[in-house]
């Protein structure tokens, strides 16, 4: 269920993203820019801070090591001072046979016993000349086999510092064994006026060195150890573990480092190493700080930065969504308004106007357009209604029962009078009349058809009126195929018959003329009747003016109105009349063929 829903949601999101709405573009682009900027800045600050902090830690380490170096150096110098003091103040000035050497040695030992385990003077052949505090050599101990003895004999001009070892040369009444670092030097011994070589041994209490380094190693972060010039460990906080094979140290590599800070990788761990050489001895103090411990204090900072970044991204994303929603809401509402318009709703009041100035302007413009559209459509509807109404009127007029009755009466009379040909002719004319009247429902027919309709009407009326008048039809053949509205000539003829020539005795003339002029078509229906008084003439083209009692009832207004409706107000019906002379009704139409009309050209006109 949940999977299905997720799929649907994913599809919706994909669909929404494809649509690329303004809100999506705005929120996405701002989010991306803001997030990238923020991440970049955060990374830069974080990296810079971490590097600076690391460097600071390393520098602090260096300072500690420098301090340690000074302390150890000072201690060793002190020891060398004791050795010098013993040699130059005592040994050089005294003969070996004198007792004073022992006393002096004891005094010197007592003065420095916190740092010393023993002092001894040994002859070149390994005989113990003097020692403090214990002057008895342990049974079985041969001084000449000791490492310190051999290295001193090898280079007599230098001080020698041994590796830490357990002092095992002198008898001891207790079970205590001391770790010492032996400082030795070659000395000149005076023996009854002769100079003999010997060795002055100063056993420094190793615990002094051990305490110095233990204090530093209590800091907790990393550790410090001490190696000699061969890389052998003198002090290491985990020396026993190393010698027991439980731990490894990179001391052999460290001895090759110059003084300063280095980065090394040992047993898969990256470490920051600071090395400092202690002057005379060649010993090196090595400080080791695992890089992970360097970073440990900054873990909280890192967590803080990550949290800040994630919260900021969260705020940016949602802030952008909300702000873009606020910004694009008016656009969306305006879009919805347009959709309603698309769907056919032309309510101008429903067009949304709101939001920023530009959106409000758009809304107002759209509303105005909607109003204009509605007005135009209303006008169009009104025109169509008028058209239909006029056509309906014209059509209804064609089914004028009086005309039909009279015509049929005439036919009956002709049949009764055995004037069958006349009857046939009249029925034929009537049929043709009605056929063209209907014109299969078309309102636009050719002038030819309209004239045929007029001819049929005239034929019927001439019979009815017993040829009281003459009708002449003169239509320019060039215009016969042009279009006209149906039922516009016949009503004029009808009017001419009823109101002009119908009452004349054989003198009535109706002339129907059609011609082209100035690229338009004119059809005149002229009669020589009594004419129309001016006041009546003025009102003839006014709506709802009906012909008095007779005729089809299609008013001249109807004819003019239909022409205006189909062909605009540039065209129409005009009347001219002179009293006692006659009347001319002129139909003005655009010149266009049926094809032109159907092709849309007529619609323009």
């Amino acid at each position: 269920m949940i999977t299905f829903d997720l799929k649907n949601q994913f599809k919706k999101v994909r669909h929404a993203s494809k649509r690329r709405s303004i809100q999506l573009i705005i929120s996405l682009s701002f989010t991306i820019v803001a997030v990238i900027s923020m991440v970049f800045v955060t990374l830069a600050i974080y990296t810079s801070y971490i590097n600076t902090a690391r460097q600071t830690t390393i520098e602090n380490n260096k300072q500690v090591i420098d301090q340690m170096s000074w302390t150890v150096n000072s201690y060793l110098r002190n020891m060398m001072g004791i050795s010098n003091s013993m040699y130059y103040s005592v040994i050089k000035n005294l003969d070996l046979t004198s007792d004073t050497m022992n006393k002096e040695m004891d005094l010197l030992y007592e003065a420095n016993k916190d740092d010393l385990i023993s002092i001894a003077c040994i002859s070149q052949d390994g005989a113990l000349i003097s020692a403090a505090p214990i002057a008895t050599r342990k049974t079985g101990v041969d001084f000449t086999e000791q490492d310190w003895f051999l290295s001193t004999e090898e280079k007599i001009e230098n001080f020698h510092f041994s590796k830490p070892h357990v002092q095992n040369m002198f008898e001891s009444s207790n079970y205590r064994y001391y770790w010492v670092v032996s400082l030795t030097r070659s000395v000149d011994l005076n023996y009854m006026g002769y100079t003999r070589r010997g060795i002055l041994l100063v056993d420094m209490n190793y615990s002094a060195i051990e305490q110095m380094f233990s204090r530093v190693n209590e800091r907790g972060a990393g550790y410090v150890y001490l190696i000699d010039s061969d890389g052998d460990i003198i002090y290491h906080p985990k020396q026993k573990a190393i010698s027991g094979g439980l731990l490894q140290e990179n001391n052999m590599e460290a001895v090759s480092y110059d003084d300063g800070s280095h980065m090394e990788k040992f047993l898969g761990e990256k470490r920051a190493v600071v090395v400092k050489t202690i002057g005379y001895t060649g010993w090196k103090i090595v400080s080791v700080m695992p890089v992970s411990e360097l970073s440990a204090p900054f873990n909280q900072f890192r967590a803080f930065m990550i949290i800040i970044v994630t919260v900021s991204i969260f705020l940016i994303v949602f802030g952008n969504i909300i702000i873009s929603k606020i910004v694009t809401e008016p656009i969306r509402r305006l879009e919805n308004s347009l959709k309603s318009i698309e769907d056919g709703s032309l309510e101008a009041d429903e067009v949304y106007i709101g939001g920023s100035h530009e959106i409000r302007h758009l809304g107002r413009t759209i509303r105005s357009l909607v109003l204009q559209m509605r007005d135009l459509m209303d006008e169009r509807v009104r025109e169509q209604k008028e058209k239909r109404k006029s056509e309906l009127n014209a059509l209804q007029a064609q089914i004028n029962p009086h005309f039909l009755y009279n015509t049929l009466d005439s036919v009956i009379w002709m049949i009764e009078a055995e004037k069958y040909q006349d009857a046939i002719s009249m029925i034929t004319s009537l049929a043709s009349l009605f056929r063209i009247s209907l014109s299969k429902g078309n309102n636009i027919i050719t002038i030819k058809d309209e004239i045929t309709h007029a001819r049929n009407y005239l034929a019927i009326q001439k019979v009815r009126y017993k040829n009281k008048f003459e009708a002449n039809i003169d239509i320019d053949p060039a215009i016969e195929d042009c279009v006209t509205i149906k039922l516009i000539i016949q009503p004029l003829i009808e009017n001419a018959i009823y109101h002009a020539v119908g009452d004349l005795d054989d003198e009535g003339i109706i002339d129907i003329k059609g011609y082209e002029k100035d690229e338009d078509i004119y059809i005149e229906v002229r009669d020589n009747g009594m004419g129309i008084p001016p006041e009546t003439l003025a009102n003839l083209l006014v709506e709802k003016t009906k012909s008095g009692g007779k005729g089809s009832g299609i008013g001249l207004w109807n004819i003019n109105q239909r022409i205006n409706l189909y062909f605009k107000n540039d065209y129409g019906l005009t009347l001219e009349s002179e009293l006692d002379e006659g009347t001319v009704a002129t139909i003005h139409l655009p010149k266009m063929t049926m094809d032109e009309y159907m092709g849309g050209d007529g619609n323009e006109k």
Partner: protein
Amino acid sequence: MKNKKLIRLFVISVLLLLLFDSIINFRYGVKRKDLVKIVFLVDGDNPNDYENMKAGAISAGEDKNCLIDFVNISKEEATEADVYFVVANHNLRYYDGTDMVDDFSLAEDFSNYVLANSDCDSILLVSSGDNKEYVNAIEGFKTSIIESGRKVEYRPLSKDVKKLKQSMYNLEQSGLFDTVIALDRPSLSAAVEANTRINPFVKIYGVDNSSEAVYYLDNGSVEALAYKDEYSMGYTAVRHALKDYSLDKIAKEKSFYYIADRDVLYSDDMEMVLFPFVK
């Protein structure tokens, strides 16, 4: 509808954000390391007997926020700890229930050394008290010595110092044995003292690495010592307790005991194990 969706999305995002930030804070935040309390339950009343093991344990636990304590086994129920190690007769029971030092192997190797380095015929094994912890060692000694065709006898002596010394004196005076292997410190001290007084021809060996034993070895009172590397035992045990399993393999392969005589007493390796730093 859309607003409801947005609100729902907002709530879910907040929850995810909180979850993510909690994870980050847990992983990278200030880590108050949980204190791990490790207790070594030891026999004997003198906790200084296990000073080497304690030094190794403390060294292993440095910078790891752990508390290490050595407590007499009788106080086990009153002690609360995260990890317990049982130590009996200077032998530590490892996490898998095995003793870190196989007393039988130690005894076998030591007896082989004794047999190879001395012309002994009759060997006396002594201990102060009849401690069942010596059973494996005695078995190891006996097996090896009997196989070589020599005589061997075990005598558990009194724990009382006076009686112990007297018994030891009597035994050495009897002349029945030419070699004594003392299985603990009191019996070793008694054997050395008795030997000094009467019969310097009895060779004494000991299973001990106390400073007295080392002194005896150094001054020739004792021929050789077999001893357990308690520092390494304590170190390894604590590393395992702190979930550093890198030493488990080493622990399986390492023997955790040594045999030292005067020739190697002051060698670099032996020095480090036998001689603690004295402040």
